[in-house]
């Protein structure tokens, strides 16, 4: 059986700029697949080619073994990064319009419940808050009871509360066995939602795997953080990094590191230990901060 979505050597050039420069991957049915990377890494270009919106310069995309076509358009649900809605019509009317466009549809009541639209169902789409709008756009992506759902930076610009609510909605879609393709530059979002991720930079894939496998592969260590003031003068360990008032020490053997610190007379009262995150991974892989 062919992979659910198979991408081979995908290339997209814009006037000499290689936005996507030869990437290949496969997405399995029922998984949540994440494309990560900083702005300009080629995530949106890639996902738009997967959606059939943007033509690749070369390379192939197969949906269940066939090129993207009519069947794919009927079975794909898409939430773009920015989408305008028709003005002067309500949330309910917008959903009804999209329902009439597709041959197979999710019942209106299911959409309303799964995306929590009750409270603003009869409101003009121009008068929605950011979070409400994203929920409506998600509902539109679900209107055709899709097999695969594309979410392009769905929580960008939302406040933390709205972002967490949105994650819960995506979790519940996942539980229904739908395949999800998600782009994001929030590493926490990718870590929480995605089963598989690829990290892109300059149009290429620089790492791929499950989030935990990627972290384990690149980082055996944990990070110890201590206030710089707690260190006696000229006793900073060699493997430490100073950032602001905090000293960070990488360790792959927590016990021996703590013993050593105690021997040096460092107070452990301000000690914090954290796991390495995808954020650190990205920095390690590209030498750059993610959100710049």
């Amino acid at each position, binding site marked *: 059986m062919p992979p659910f979505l198979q991408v081979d050597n995908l290339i997209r050039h814009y006037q000499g700029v290689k936005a996507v420069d030869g990437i290949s991957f496969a997405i399995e049915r029922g998984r949540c697949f994440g494309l990560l990377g900083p702005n300009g890494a080629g995530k949106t270009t890639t996902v738009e080619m997967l*959606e*059939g*919106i943007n033509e690749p310069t070369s390379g192939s995309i197969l949906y269940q073994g066939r090129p993207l076509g*009519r069947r794919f*358009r*009927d079975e*794909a649900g*898409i939430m*773009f990064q*920015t*989408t*305008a*809605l*028709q*003005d*002067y*019509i309500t949330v309910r*009317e*917008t959903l*009804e*319009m*999209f329902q*009439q*466009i*597709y*041959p197979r549809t999710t019942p209106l009541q299911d959409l309303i419940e799964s995306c929590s639209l009750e409270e603003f169902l009869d409101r003009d789409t121009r008068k929605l808050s950011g979070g409400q709008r994203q929920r409506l756009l998600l509902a*539109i992506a679900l209107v*055709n009871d899709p097999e695969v759902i594309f979410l392009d930076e769905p929580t960008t610009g939302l406040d933390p509360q709205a972002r967490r609510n949105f994650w819960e909605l995506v979790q519940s879609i996942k539980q229904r066995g739908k395949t999800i393709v998600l782009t994001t530059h929030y590493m926490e979002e990718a870590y929480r939602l995605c089963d598989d991720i690829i990290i892109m930079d300059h149009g290429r894939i620089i790492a791929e795997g499950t989030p935990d496998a990627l972290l384990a592969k690149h980082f055996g260590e944990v990070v110890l953080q201590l206030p710089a003031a707690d260190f006696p003068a000229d006793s900073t360990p060699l493997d430490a990094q100073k950032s602001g008032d905090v000293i960070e020490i990488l360790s792959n053997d927590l016990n021996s590191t703590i013993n050593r610190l105690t021997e040096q007379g460092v107070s452990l009262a301000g000690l914090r230990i954290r796991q390495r995150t995808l954020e650190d991974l990205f920095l390690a892989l590209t030498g750059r901060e993610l959100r710049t």
Partner: protein
Amino acid sequence: MSFRRFLAIMRARNKEFWRDRAALAWNFIFPIMVIGGFAMAFSGGAPDLYKVGITATQSSQNLHFEETRYIQFIPVTDLSAAITKVERHQLDMLISPATRQFWINESSPAGYLLERLLNSSDAGFKREAVTGEGIRYVDWLISGILAMNLMFSALFGVGFVIVRYRKNGMLKRLKATPVTAFEFISAQVVSRLWLLLSVSALVFILTDLVLDFRMYGSYLDLLIVFALGAICLISLGLLIAARLASEELAGGLLNAISWPMMFLSGVWFSLEGVNPWLVKLAQILPLTHVIDGARAIMIDGAGLMEILPNLMALLVMTAIFLFIAARTFRWE
């Protein structure tokens, strides 16, 4: 082509139009204001100057009558067209010194006065009486205003709106659905056509109640001319909107097209007597053919056969506009 998808898009567009109160009000109020304003401005009784048409004369045939002050003498070449003008009170009198004839309108008080003046200065002219009701400027203007409103609403309501949809990503959203370009465009055209014709009909009826327009032709024929004109102008709007993504550029282009059309197509004044080059230029503007056709029906009682050249011009232009628009249309 799925009729269901076409209907879904069209219904949403119709709702948007009817609920956008400001735009809707403007669509109704603007033409009514213009027509009402002109009706008042030109209802101030007879003009203070008499207009007399006079056919070409040799100097030996100069009349004493021509020395009368406060009479504007207008040279005419086409006698039958000039007689029609006397029938419509556009000329108060017509004189042919070569054949010693003059024409006046029986129902025109100005004609009666001019006849007495002529007889007292030059004897021996043969009186030819014609009849006919006067045409007010508003009778002539109504076709122009309705057609102009049609033009602005078609160009901006379709062209500008599609560019806006493209810019804000709504077209992209629809591209990701099974909706085809043809379904989307035909939904926009039919939605706008229906709105344009209902607005025009309502404006016509409302202003007719007050001003009682001259209407000698068939209402069905008038509807056909306006429908063909609307389709042609909507197609022109589609052509402009086919691939632009900048509202500013689209607005500029639409203005660059609509304003010359408004002045050269004879909305406000007849192009008779202006530079022949401009008259030729006006023939390639769709609005000219809508207005000429509508005026011929309303004022002369022309049938469809008599305005066939106008109708054909509109059909040919529509085909050209739609062909190019379909070839160049882009969702993004």
